[in-house]
C-alpha cells in the first residue's frame, strides 16, 4: 500500500491551503508523490491522494494523464529526456537518442536492466541554444556529442559526480 512520508503529508496539507482553490494543489502534490514513489505514478497513488486531499479521483486522474512530466511507467534512477524538436533535430538530437539507446542496449521508453537509465524523446525543453541537449532528472546538459553524453551518463552511473 502506498503511503506518503509524514513530511510529504505535511507538504500536501499546506499546499491545499496555499492557493485560492484547493484544486490548485493537485499539480504540486502529484509531483511530490512521483518523487516519493521513485519517479512514476500509478492508480494506487491517485486513489491515495484523492482520499488524502478529498478531491474526486477523476479530477486527479485527468491532471495526471494530461501532463507529460508525470511518468505513467517506471523510469530509471536517471531519467534521460533528449529533446527532438526542430532546433535540436537539425543539430542531431535524434541521432543522439539512437546512439544512446544502442549504447545502453534498451529501446525508447524502457528501463535498462540495472535500473539506472531510461530514455525518452521529449519536446522543446527551452535550451535550443545548446542543441543538441538532454535533461537528466532535474539538470540540463547542453552542447552534447554522442560520446560526451555517454561519458556524462557513465559518470552518473558510477555516482561520483552529479552533472557534467
Amino acid at each position, binding site marked *: 500500500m502506498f503511503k506518503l512520508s509524514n513530511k510529504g503529508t505535511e507538504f500536501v496539507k499546506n499546499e491545499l491551503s496555499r492557493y485560492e482553490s484547493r484544486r490548485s494543489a493537485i499539480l504540486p502534490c502529484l509531483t511530490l508523490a512521483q518523487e516519493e514513489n521513485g519517479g512514476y505514478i500509478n*492508480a494506487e497513488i*491517485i*486513489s491515495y491522494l*484523492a482520499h488524502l486531499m478529498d478531491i*474526486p*479521483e*477523476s*479530477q486527479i*486522474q*485527468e491532471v495526471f*494523464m*494530461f501532463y507529460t512530466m508525470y511518468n505513467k511507467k517506471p523510469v530509471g534512477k536517471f531519467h534521460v529526456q533528449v529533446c527532438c524538436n526542430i532546433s535540436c533535430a537539425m543539430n542531431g538530437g535524434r541521432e543522439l537518442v539512437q546512439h544512446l539507446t544502442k549504447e545502453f542496449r534498451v529501446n525508447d521508453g524502457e528501463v535498462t536492466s540495472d535500473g539506472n537509465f531510461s530514455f525518452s524523446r521529449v519536446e522543446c525543453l527551452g535550451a535550443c541554444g545548446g542543441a543538441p541537449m538532454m535533461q537528466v532528472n532535474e539538470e540540463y546538459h547542453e552542447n552534447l556529442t554522442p560520446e560526451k553524453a555517454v561519458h556524462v551518463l557513465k559518470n552518473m552511473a558510477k555516482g561520483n559526480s552529479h552533472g557534467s
Partner: protein
Amino acid sequence: MFEKVAQKLKEPLMPKCTINGKEIEVKDGTTIMEAFYQKEVPIAHYCYHPGLSIAGVCRLCMVEIEGMPRTQIACNTKITEGMKISNVSDKAKDSVKWALDFHLINHPLDCPICDQAGECGLQEQYMHFGKYEPEMGQGKVKKRKVVDLGERVVLDTERCILCSRCVRFTDEVSKTNELGIFNRGDRSEVGTFQDKPLNNNYSVNTVDICPVGALTAKDFRFKQRVWLLKNRESICTGCSTGCNVNVYFNKGGVYRLKPKYNSDVNGHWMCDKGRDTYKHLNVEARLTKGKKTEEGKTTECDAGELAKQTAQLIEKIKKEGGGDSIGLIVTAQYSNEEYAAMFELFKIKLGSNNVFYWINNQKTFEAFDGLLYRGDKNPNTKGLLRALSKCKFDQTWDKLEEKIKAKQLKIVVVLGPENQEVYPDISEKLKLLNSVDNVVWLTTNQVLGTELLKSCWQIPVKSTIEKSGTYINFKGLEQKIKPVTNIVSGALTLTEAAALFAGDEIPFDSKTPVKGERVWNEFFHHRGDL
C-alpha cells in the same frame, strides 16, 4: 420627454437581429444558439446542451455573422443589436462540413453494431452537411471498445467525439464527478477512474445526451433498432415527481423511456429507477385474462365477464349485509377520473364508506435525493387525497383491520398497485385479507400468493400508458396524459370497471382488434429529439 427615456431605460434592452433573413427580437444576453432554439431554426451542434454549461469544443455550430471575417461559434457568442446571422450561407456550411469532417476521420463507422444508429448526431449532420468523398486515407486512431461501466452503461471510447457533455453532466447535474477525459490530443478518452462503475441514480441520462454511440444503455443494448420504434409522451409512474417521458414502443411492446423536457417538473433529466418502470408494463409481466382462484382452483375468463360476475356478487352482498359489508382498498397509482368514478360508485350506488388508503412506505415518504427521485413512490398521491377528502372517506387503516376481524366485510375490492416493486408489503396485506370470503383485486400485473385467500378474483386493469387521465404530482401540478399504446387490449380501466360493477354496460365497444390486422411497418416515424 424624460418619462420616455426613463421608461425606455427601465424596460429590458431587446436587441434585434436577423437569423437566416428573418428579423427577430431576443432578450439581452441570449447567445445565438439560444435564439436558434427559441425560433426552432435547425442548427448543427454536439457539445451544446440547454441543460448544461457551454463547452464550445465541437466547433460545429458555426454561423456566419455579417462583418466578421471568420465564422463564429453560435453557442458562446452573445447577440448584439443589428447582428445579421446566417447558418445556411456557403461559408457557414463549408466550416460546418469541415468540422464534421474532423469528427469523422477517426470515427470507427461501426453503425451496423451501434445502438445509436438512427438517432446518431454524426449520421444526422452527415446527411445535411456531409455527403463528401472521404479524403482521409490514413489509419485511424484505435481506442478501447466495449468498456463496462457498471450495470447500466457501456462505454465505447472509439466512437466518442469528446464533446464532454457526459463529463459536464456528472460535474454539474449529478455532482458525482465520476467521468473525466483522460490523456491528451486525439489519444483522449472519456471514462471513470480505473473504469469504476457509474452508479449514481442518473447515470443513464449520460446515454441520452451522448450525441453518438459512445455511451449506450445496457438495458436497451441490441434490443431494437431506433427507426422501428415510435415514441409518444407520457409520465413516469416511478415516484411522485411525475417526470415527463417519451415512451419508445412498437408492436412488440415498450422498449425504453427517455426524459422529455419540462421546465417546471423534471427539466431535461430522469432518474434510472424511473427508467425501469417500463419493464412491468410489457405483456410478459402483465395479467392478460381475468383469474378466479377459489380454494386453490384457478379458472380464467374474460375481464369484462369477470367484472359482470363481480357486479352480481356485490348486488347479492349489498342485499344481505347492506353497504357496510363492502370494502375498498385504494392505492395512489391511478388517475383522478378513475378515483372519481370508483368513489362515486361506492358512495352513492353502494352507499358504503369503507374506503381505506393503503400507504406503501410511510417511513421514507419525505425522502428526496436533491434532484428528482422522491420517497413517495406513487404518481397520484395528491389526486387520491383530494378525491378522498371530497367524498369524506376518512376511515383510517386500523378501522379496516377491526372490521375484518369483526367479519363485517364480506367483500373487499382492492385497487392493486401497478408498480409492485415499491409495494413490498403485498404478501402481508394478503395475509390480512385471507379471512375475508371474497376479494376482488384489480391489478395490471399478476399478484403472487393469492392462492392462500379463500376466493380471489383478479381483474386485469390498463396501465398508465394505455389510458388517458390526469395525475397530480407532489407539487400539486396536474398533468394530463394520453394513451400511448395498447398492450393488454382486454384489460379495463377503473372507470369501465366501476361502470360494470354498477351493472350497466361499458359505453363503447372494447373488444380486442380483429386478428390478422396488417402489421404496419413504421418506415417513417417521429424520432425523439437528439
